[in-house]
């Protein structure tokens, strides 16, 4: 469904991605793992059209989307949920969700999806008239995922949905990501929480220095001695260095 | 020497001689003009000065000399005015400077012309300080502010009342008019101001002032401001419900046509002092009005036009009486000769409300040429406004001097 080949990009003159290849087949959950600052979010930004692609190709549903405008990419059904838990704090929860449905004009469909989001995350329904700025970290994460769902996406890019959340909340959110995937939405999840991500995903890529370092089935990676030692043990940043040496 | 070369030498010599003779007999009198040519009126009276000088040239010039006129716009900005004066004096090497419109521009130029010894004749500025600097090179065609304030106050105190409110805009000319009027009301009648408000030059909203003036119950309101601000204040004075029985007194810019044009009916009854009344029924004034209407499309010329016109005539008279060499060696001597010739103009009767006379001393008495002001009132507002002359007052020559 999403195919990235030889992706090169960066900020200003600083190159971050140096020929990244990866693929996400339809209906699957794929994880992109790697230490802090390795370019995971940069790759998502390039896919979503927020930064220019210098070289390489991005294909979505068989169509080239590299360097298309972000709103054009969204209209093709590819939605990103960024890592900053960026809600619109001065809008209500329900307004936030409605912004997500901006590209759609089928009112009944939007209403149905709103109910679906409330079904996934009942706490959002309780708080739907509240300003998003008053929500807790976990609730905001639910809100931004819900907002992405409101666009009726074919595929979602989730950037570190577990960051800075309590384990119980993470579990709840991951269970819902799984439900979303089962409903037919393809998912690429970026994570530093490698263990959880490998449980959730069926396939995973590990990024380093702007390239894919390892890839494989999640189960295999989970039992791979190298991965186990370096990612599932100590801190991610240290272990990735150890892995290389 | 062959015949051919001889012939060429003779030819050259003859050419040289005729060339020299031509420059010696008739030269160019260089006149520099700097004025405020921002508004439509400003551009038109600037043009009129140039056109009038042109007509003198077409009629054969002055004593065979042609006038070479350079017109610059100073936009009523003193830095531009001084730059223009310097440019005209040092680059164009003018014999005579005409300018400027705004007092704030004329004042610093007086220092320039005094230092460079170039005669300067002023078409519009009324600030009394202009002639009090002691420059021997400056001449003022308009009525000095010291006379205006006296005439205005005398009329107001005797015919309207002594309880006057003042609305004074922040531009230099209006401040000057406003202060002079208050001082005159005090010195002539011992009357203190009933209400004074300083307002921004482009103030929009005068309602609070008008409300206070209304409750103060005054005999008259003096609005000292540039034309459009004055017009706005006039309109709002009626909107606030101040009755027409309270007289509206204008500052010198009340003579500018935007005042009746913008204020409309609110201009009716507003009176002001000026050096010329379009309602003047002397033949010369009627002819002038007609000429300005035809040439420049101005409905009724105000004193900015008449003074510019009088200035050209005075310059024409003075240049006619001056003995000019008009070569580069005699530039300073020619400038002095022109100055002395202007100082010799006495009792010029033109469009102005009274005769214009100058004399040699570098004093306000000698250099404020016109001391007769007319009091003019609008009897109808709008673009086709109508004025009437209330009074014509000649002030003593020393009036307003300490």
């Amino acid at each position, binding site marked *: 469904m999403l195919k990235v080949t030889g992706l090169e990009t960066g900020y200003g003159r600083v190159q971050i991605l140096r020929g990244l290849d990866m693929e996400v087949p339809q209906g699957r959950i794929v994880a992109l793992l790697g230490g802090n600052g390795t370019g995971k979010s940069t790759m998502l930004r390039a896919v979503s059209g927020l930064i220019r692609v210098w070289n390489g190709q991005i294909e979505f549903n068989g169509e080239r989307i590299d360097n298309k405008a972000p709103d054009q990419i969204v209209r093709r059904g590819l939605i990103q949920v960024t890592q900053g838990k960026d809600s619109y704090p001065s809008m209500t929860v329900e307004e936030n969700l409605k*912004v997500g449905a901006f590209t759609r004009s089928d009112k009944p469909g939007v209403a149905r999806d709103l109910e679906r989001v409330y079904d996934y995350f009942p706490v959002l329904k309780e708080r739907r008239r509240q300003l998003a700025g008053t929500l807790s970290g976990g609730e905001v994460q639910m809100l931004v995922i819900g907002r992405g769902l409101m666009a009726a996406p074919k595929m979602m890019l989730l950037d570190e949905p577990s960051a800075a959340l309590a384990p119980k909340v993470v579990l709840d959110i991951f269970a819902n990501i799984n439900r979303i995937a089962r409903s037919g939405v393809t998912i690429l999840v970026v994570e530093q929480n490698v263990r959880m991500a490998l449980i959730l995903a069926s396939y995973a890529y590990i990024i380093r220095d702007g390239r894919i370092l390892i890839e494989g089935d999640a189960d295999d990676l989970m039992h791979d001695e190298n991965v186990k030692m370096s990612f599932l043990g100590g801190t991610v940043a240290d272990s990735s260095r150890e892995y290389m040496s | 020497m062959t015949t051919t070369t001889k012939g060429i030498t003779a030819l050259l010599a003859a050419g040289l001689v005729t060339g020299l003779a031509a420059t010696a007999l008739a030269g160019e009198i260089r006149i520099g003009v700097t004025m405020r040519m921002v508004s439509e009126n400003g551009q038109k009276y600037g043009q009129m000065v140039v056109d009038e000088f042109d007509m003198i040239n077409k009629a054969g010039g002055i004593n065979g000399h042609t006038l070479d006129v350079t017109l610059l716009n100073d936009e009523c900005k003193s830095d531009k005015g001084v730059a223009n004066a310097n440019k005209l004096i040092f680059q164009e090497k003018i014999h005579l400077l005409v300018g400027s419109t705004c007092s704030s521009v004329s004042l610093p130029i007086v220092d320039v012309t005094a230092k460079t010894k170039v005669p300067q004749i002023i078409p519009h500025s009324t600030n009394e300080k202009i002639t009090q600097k002691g420059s021997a090179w400056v001449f003022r065609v308009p009525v000095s502010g010291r006379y205006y304030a006296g005439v205005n106050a005398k009329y107001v105190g005797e015919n309207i009342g002594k309880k006057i409110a003042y609305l004074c805009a922040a531009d230099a000319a209006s401040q000057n008019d406003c202060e002079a009027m208050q001082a005159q009301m005090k010195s002539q009648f011992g009357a203190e101001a009933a209400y004074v408000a300083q307002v921004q030059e482009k103030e929009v909203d005068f309602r*609070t002032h008008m409300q206070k003036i209304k409750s103060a119950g005054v005999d008259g309101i003096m609005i000292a401001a540039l*034309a*459009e601000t004055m017009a706005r204040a006039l309109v709002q004075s009626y909107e606030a419900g101040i009755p027409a029985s309270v007289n509206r007194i204008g500052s010198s810019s009340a003579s500018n046509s935007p005042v009746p044009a913008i204020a409309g009916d609110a201009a009716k009854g507003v009176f002001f002092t000026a050096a010329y009344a379009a309602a003047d029924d002397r033949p010369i004034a009627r002819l002038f009005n007609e000429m300005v209407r035809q040439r420049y499309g101005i409905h009724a010329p105000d004193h900015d036009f008449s003074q510019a016109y009088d200035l050209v005539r005075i310059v024409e008279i003075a240049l006619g009486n001056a003995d000019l060499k008009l070569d580069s060696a005699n530039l300073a001597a020619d400038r002095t000769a022109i100055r002395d010739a202007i100082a010799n103009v006495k009792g010029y009767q033109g469009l102005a409300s009274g005769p214009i006379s100058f004399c040699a001393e570098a004093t306000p008495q000698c250099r404020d040429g016109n001391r007769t002001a007319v009091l003019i009132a609008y009897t109808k507002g709008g673009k086709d406004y109508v004025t009437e002359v209330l009074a014509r007052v000649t002030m003593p020559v020393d009036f307003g001097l300490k």
Partner: protein
Amino acid sequence: MDFDFTSLFAFILFGLTIGVVYGIVALGISLIYSGLDIVHFAHGEIYMFGAFFGLVFSEHMGVPYPLAILSAMVCTGLLGIVIERVFYRRLTRAGGGYTVAGMGMIICGFGMSVVLQNIAYLSWGADAEPFPVDLGEPFQFGDISLPKSYGLTAVIALLLMAVLHFFLKKTKIGLAVRAVAANKDIAFLMGINVPLMISLIFGLACALAAAAGVLIGPMQSVQVEMGYLMLMKAFAAAVVGGFGSLPGAIVGGLLVGIFENLGAAYISPNHKDIYAFLLLILVLMVRPSGLFGVEVRVKA
């Protein structure tokens, strides 16, 4: 100083009726600031252009006054969009981001203000033009008379604010505008055409200024330099209310209007304009972010 309640009422009324106009100009300035991160110093000239358009429609083309307001708003809005598209957007990174606002944008606003003044000067000249709108006899409240134009101004200004409020709160496009104002990247990721919305915001802000210009027109004459004083007052209003806050802009406008009239009435009649800035300093001393301002936004 003698005091009576009728006069006090009159001064407050005068303040309110001019304050709403400051308010709608301030609203535009705040809208642009929150939407584009530009402190728009050329907004006074936009207001002046609006007034001229209104004058051209109403006086020279004979369009009825209310329609002239609308037409002037449309024309000025379009003018604003062109200015934003052709000039401002080029000065920002990658076209349409407006994320590196700074000195450049401030200077560019000043430059635009000079350019617009000169264009207006060349098109209409420096002379003030009367803008008479005959609405009949003034309203009378006892001893106070209030021209109909002021009443109309207040009504139309409030109406515009209500329409804007409805637009922003109740319509999909309004929601998108707010989304763009709050976070452009996220708005982009929600499929919103951010450059288009930015143009819309700018056009809207300019249309509001135009409405103010046409409303003020009958109270004063229309003139090339009229924008400066309005810009100062509207800025004071926007800052008093909290820069970037829309309700703040309106409340700020009303406060500036009332404060300057009361100051002129009871403190000193001289230099009424000082009071706007006195109020500004007072408010900033107590609440540095203005009355409705949130804490200073930190850009990611």
